[in-house]
């Protein structure tokens, strides 16, 4: 009976299942990617049989960790340590692969044996590289070809395979080369340690931690899970999945409410022949659960499809290969079932509470009830939506959540772009230079001498080198730190409202928001990587990023972030503002191998970070459109179905097909347009909520550009048009005689 009821409304059941399915698929695909990154990190860190891993404790992400080579020497002398290998682990940006993983190993080290050569030779000397099987395929390169990383050419001597897609999508070079190209002289990303006796693991761990309080020692198997990147990926998986599920859930609830409406008379009969309330409740609940379970299964299927797709897209799979594990499937299915329960509860309760006499008298419910007279002030389209208030509201809610998300993320992205642009153009600089081909701005490293050389160019008035870094110290869980020359031009931009500017080493001034979050006043001290700093002043600049961070002397920042004689970016002020483009071209011509230069206005837009954020935004777009489209279609299909006779009447009275088509389409469009307005409010509320989170809010200045709003409305209207098209077409194609006979 349950299945037959669902079968009776095939289109609707299918659409509902699809709505849930897409949500579940999103949870699975994103979860699988997070899992892939976690396993990849763990494999890289511990694949070669390492027991312990030594990283910098405040690094945030494995790739940002730097440990001095001397530390390795010291650890090697400890009792119970059998083996220590220093490893560089980082990424470069290749043309087709934004995040290409590079490992730097000593060719003599034990750890490198983990990468089994299946073709060619093992890595023996500098300027040689071995590629993972997957990477070789993706880049269409083979043994004896060459590959360029940061202006350095490497000869491919071998192809390896480990069975880990994360590793097989990357490449290995010698440690010395890696230190050179990633500008980490005498440093490594982490040390892999093998102990002589596994029972001594905890002892060795404790001893190293005792020796170096700024290093963290973890068991190799835990590394993947400890990564901030993996964490945030998992949160994102859940976040986006949750949104999709929420929209899908609303669609589900609409379906179940509709189904109860439709079955009102049947429910009346069931109650009249002696069915108890509980039994009616169970009937509706079962329908809901069966539907959601089927949707869940569908979602798992789509999820697998997406993961397959991810693993066949080199740009993604080399960094975040999808790995589906049973717990993830269980998560996906439970999401679907919870949804079914929640969405079924209200309709079931409603059905059980029906008065049998009234239910029997129910006339199909095409809205023959009193309408408020104010509704007559509006057109027919609006009144038709009003007839099914609950359903229209739920549909609008679904669209509004998607649109809200787009507005919120779009505004935050715009805020980031604007914030960074303001930040990089501090003091009127026209050009910004960052390291060429860098995968992420956080990795950008430029030698100071290049800054001096650029400053010596006659067209250039001034060059300020700035070090950027995130501090993850004990005093400040998340602080954006700028290192600047205390006497330079760039620092003039930071106007202190309390105390004074920094004059030299050992001092820091904080942004207003940072000072409030950290509860620091002028004269207090703050413990950060690289030492203890005295707060000399509080500044306000109006830029969220700046006010959420702190400024210290360039030298301090170079030490704190292990960038000796290096900076993150260069701010360049040219003498003749009309010659900006020419100067940009000349700098790139001369130093193109080391830096890429952009105007301050386009720098951020062009950076890989923003490109990636925008790609994510695109994914949310697609998801919102898919799920939202399904919900709108579902609603409009129902609207057409229950009004079949009405449409038949209109056709009998001489309305043209095109007129009927437009009537349904107009309803769908109006619905989505109202939803767009609602969604923009939801988005603003969402952003407001996020900004209210202490510590996070200071970084997020949302900017609602006309484009963001236009985008939201466009997405909404697209949803309305796409979702309304099929039902409208269907309605216009109804044959009047049959439509009139429809019950």
């Amino acid at each position, binding site marked *: 009976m349950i299945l037959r009821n669902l079968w009776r409304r095939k289109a609707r059941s299918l659409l509902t299942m699809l709505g849930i399915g897409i949500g579940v698929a999103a949870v699975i695909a994103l979860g699988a990617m997070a899992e892939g990154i976690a396993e990849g990190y763990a494999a890289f860190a511990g694949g070669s049989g390492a027991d312990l891993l030594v990283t910098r404790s405040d690094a945030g992400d494995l790739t940002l960790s730097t440990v001095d080579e001397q530390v390795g020497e010291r650890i090697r002398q400890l009792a119970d340590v059998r083996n220590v290998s220093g490893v560089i682990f980082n990424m470069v940006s290749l043309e087709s692969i934004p995040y290409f993983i590079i490992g730097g190993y000593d060719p003599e080290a034990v750890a490198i044996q983990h990468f089994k050569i299946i073709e060619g030779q093992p890595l023996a000397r500098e300027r040689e590289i071995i590629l993972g099987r997957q990477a070789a395929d993706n880049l269409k390169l083979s043994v004896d070809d060459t590959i360029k990383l940061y202006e350095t050419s490497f000869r491919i001597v071998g192809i390896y395979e480990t069975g880990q897609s994360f590793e097989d999508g990357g490449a290995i070079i010698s440690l010395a080369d890696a230190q050179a190209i990633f500008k980490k002289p005498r440093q490594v990303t982490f040390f892999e340690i093998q102990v002589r006796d596994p029972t001594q693991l905890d002892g060795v761990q404790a001893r190293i931690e005792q020796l170096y309080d700024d290093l963290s020692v973890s068991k190799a198997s835990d590394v993947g899970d400890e990564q901030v990147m993996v964490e945030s990926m998992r949160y994102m998986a859940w976040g986006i999945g949750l949104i999709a599920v929420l929209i899908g859930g609303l669609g589900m609830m609409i379906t179940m409410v509709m189904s109860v409406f439709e079955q009102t008379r049947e429910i009346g009969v069931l109650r009249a022949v002696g069915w108890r309330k509980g039994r009616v409740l169970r009937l509706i609940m079962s329908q809901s659960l069966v539907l959601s379970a089927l949707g869940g299964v569908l979602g798992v299927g789509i999820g697998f499809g997406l993961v397959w797709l991810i693993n066949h897209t080199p740009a993604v799979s080399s960094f975040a290969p999808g790995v589906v594990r049973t717990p993830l499937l269980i998560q996906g299915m439970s999401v679907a079932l919870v949804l079914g329960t929640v969405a079924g509860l209200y309709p079931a309760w409603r059905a059980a509470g029906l008065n049998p006499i009234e239910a029997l008298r129910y006339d199909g419910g095409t809205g*023959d009830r009193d309408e408020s007279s104010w509704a007559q002030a509006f057109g027919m389209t609006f009144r038709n939506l009003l007839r099914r208030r609950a359903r229209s509201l739920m549909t609008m809610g679904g669209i509004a959540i998607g649109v809200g998300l787009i507005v919120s993320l779009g505004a935050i992205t715009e805020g980031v772009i604007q914030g960074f642009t303001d930040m990089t153009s501090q003091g009127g600089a026209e050009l910004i230079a960052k390291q060429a081909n860098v995968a992420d701005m956080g990795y950008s490293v430029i030698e100071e001498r290049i800054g001096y050389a650029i400053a010596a160019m006659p067209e250039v008035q001034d060059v300020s080198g700035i070090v950027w870094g995130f501090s993850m110290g004990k005093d400040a869980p998340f602080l954006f730190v700028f290192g600047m020359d205390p006497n330079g031009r760039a620092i003039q931009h930071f106007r202190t409202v309390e105390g004074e500017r920094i004059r030299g080493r050992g001092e820091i001034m904080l942004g207003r928001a940072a000072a409030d979050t950290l509860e620091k006043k002028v004269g207090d001290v703050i413990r950060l990587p690289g030492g203890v700093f005295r707060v000399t002043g509080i500044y306000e600049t109006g830029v969220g990023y700046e006010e959420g961070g702190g400024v210290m002397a360039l030298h301090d920042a170079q030490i704190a972030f292990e960038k000796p004689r290096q900076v993150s970016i260069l701010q360049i002020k040219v003498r003749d503002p009309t010659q900006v483009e020419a100067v940009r071209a000349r700098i790139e011509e001369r130093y193109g191998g080391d830096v890429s230069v952009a105007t301050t206005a386009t720098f951020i837009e062009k950076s890989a970070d923003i490109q990636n954020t925008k790609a994510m935004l695109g994914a949310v777009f697609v998801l919102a459109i898919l799920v939202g489209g399904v919900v709108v279609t579902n609603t409009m299909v129902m609207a057409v179905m229950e009004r079949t006779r*009405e449409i038949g009447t*209109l056709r009998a*009275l*001489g309305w043209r097909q095109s007129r009927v088509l437009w009537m349904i389409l107009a309803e769908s469009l109006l619905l989505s347009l109202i939803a767009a307005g609602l969604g923009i409010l939801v988005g603003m509320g969402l952003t407001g909520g996020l900004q209210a989170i202490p510590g996070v809010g200071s970084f997020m200045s949302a900017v609602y550009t006309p484009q963001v709003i236009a985008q939201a409305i466009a997405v909404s209207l697209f949803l309305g048009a796409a979702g309304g098209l099929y039902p409208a077409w269907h309605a216009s194609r109804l044959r009047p005689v049959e439509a*009139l006979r429809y019950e």
Partner: protein
Amino acid sequence: MNKRPIVVETHALIKIYGDGAEIHALDGVDLVILRGEFLTVMGPSGSGKSTLLNMIGALDKPTGGQVIVNGEDLATIRDVDRFRARTVGFVFQLHNLLPALTARENVEVPMHGQSIGEREMRERSEHLLELVGLPDRMRHLPSQLSGGQRQRVAVARALANDPAIILADEPTGSLDTQAGGEIVDLLEHINRNQGTTILIVTHDPKVARRTRRILTMRDGKIADDHRVESPVREDLRDLARSRLGSMLLNGAKDQVLAEIGLDQHDEETAIETLRLLLNRTLTDQDTHDAQ
């Protein structure tokens, strides 16, 4: 009588439903309906009544044969929608009003897309609602009207574009006897005063007896087609048989006038005289009944 123009004409009309087990809903129907006729189609369920109605209204296409409405062959008609809007008017068993629209807006529905101005639309719909006796219900929604009132709105809607024929499929089917009777009164009134041709499909012999021609269908064929005598004509026949009638027929007009105490010789007042005569008779009757 045959000088009146033909509104509907069917020739060997055939409609077959289904592929395997074919149902011959219409099996060679020849029919002529003249302008101003008020007729019913009766017959058991499945005899083809509604199918015939749908064919005439261009809601469905025949398998064979020909339907000509207002001189146009429906098989060759280019714009079926326009035909439905302009040439025919439907009244259904269930009123099928749009629940979101007011009574007046419902009447205007067939006028949409027929290049009729906003103002004219309003004037016409208001006029039609007055015609069906609902001048004070213009802004009411269907849910605020009684069943009979809703059907009146449906009749007004059918008249929206002054159609050549009104096709009413069981218009009293979902109404109680009194409301049903009122709808037939209304249709009769429209037929007599507007001259609109009206075809009613019904089960109800009481409704059929009110019209002047009854078609009876059986198994897709017209089994019987007879004209009902006009009630007035029957009354005249009764009058002719009465003593007054024989006095009038025998040319004894003076005698009649003398008998009731009048002496006017003007022939033009004869009818008026007759009216007075009948009035007096009724008054006498009432007085008699009261006693």
